């Protein structure tokens, strides 16, 4: 496929209460094989997906969130978290998993994948996409 499109995955739901977060991750991983320009946005309750140290034993469901740590290996490293969503929920970036990727162009230096951005920065970024998948 010659054309490269900008794909945005918008994650707005909390994990476990509904399956959207997990099935969104499944699309993202499959989509990574298509060599498109992929961006992830976590807004509203979607920011709860990235919170550390889930322990799902008591609810009998699988903890799928370690998979976020593998996104860097799939060259998915543009991950935006909305500042206003974090703040409304009493969270800071330190509450979230530390997601990294290795930059081939800089001798595989480890870099942060998550950027915290304001609503208006995120709105601008959303406005530049070709395909928006919402979960």
């Amino acid at each position, binding site marked *: 496929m010659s054309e490269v499109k900008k794909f945005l995955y918008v994650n707005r739901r909390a994990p*476990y*209460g*509904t*399956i959207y977060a997990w099935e969104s991750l499944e699309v993202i991983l499959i989509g990574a094989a298509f060599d498109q320009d992929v961006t992830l946005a976590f807004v509203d309750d979607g920011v709860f997906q990235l919170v550390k140290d889930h322990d799902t034993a008591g*609810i*009998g*469901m*699988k903890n799928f969130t370690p998979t976020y740590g593998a996104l860097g290996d799939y060259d998915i490293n543009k991950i935006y978290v909305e500042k206003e969503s974090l703040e409304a929920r009493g969270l800071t970036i330190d509450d979230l998993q530390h997601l990294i990727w290795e930059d081939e162009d800089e001798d595989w230096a480890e870099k942060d994948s998550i950027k915290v951005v304001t609503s208006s920065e995120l709105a601008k970024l959303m406005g530049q996409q070709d395909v928006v998948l919402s979960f």
Partner: protein
Amino acid sequence: MKLSIQVNEGPYQHQASDSAFQFTKAAIEAGHDIFRVFFYHDGVNNGTRYTTPPQDDRHVVNNWSELSAAHDLDLVICVAAAQRRGLVDEGEAERNGKDGNNIAPGFRISGLGQLIEAGIQSDRLVVFGD
């Protein structure tokens, strides 16, 4: 005490069925009687034997079937909701001209009166949904 449980959402998409299952299990362990578990709305989809979830995940349908077998649970699927959503047993398949059925072991299809009866006969009714 006699308890009934209503489940309004199908497997996997919502946590409702999982929560209802964990609650029912805990109620049985505490020595309570479960009068009935009633599946309404998309909840009827908990009763299909055609699911094959990923191997490392729980099997929502089998969880119910096995709990039913172990404790003689009455798992009732609402017929009107089931017809809309494609959940059929042998009788429903015959009545509606379907070439097969997909109901899982331990479940039965019946009318909405079973929900009202559960409300009347049980000391408590607890609803799980979206």
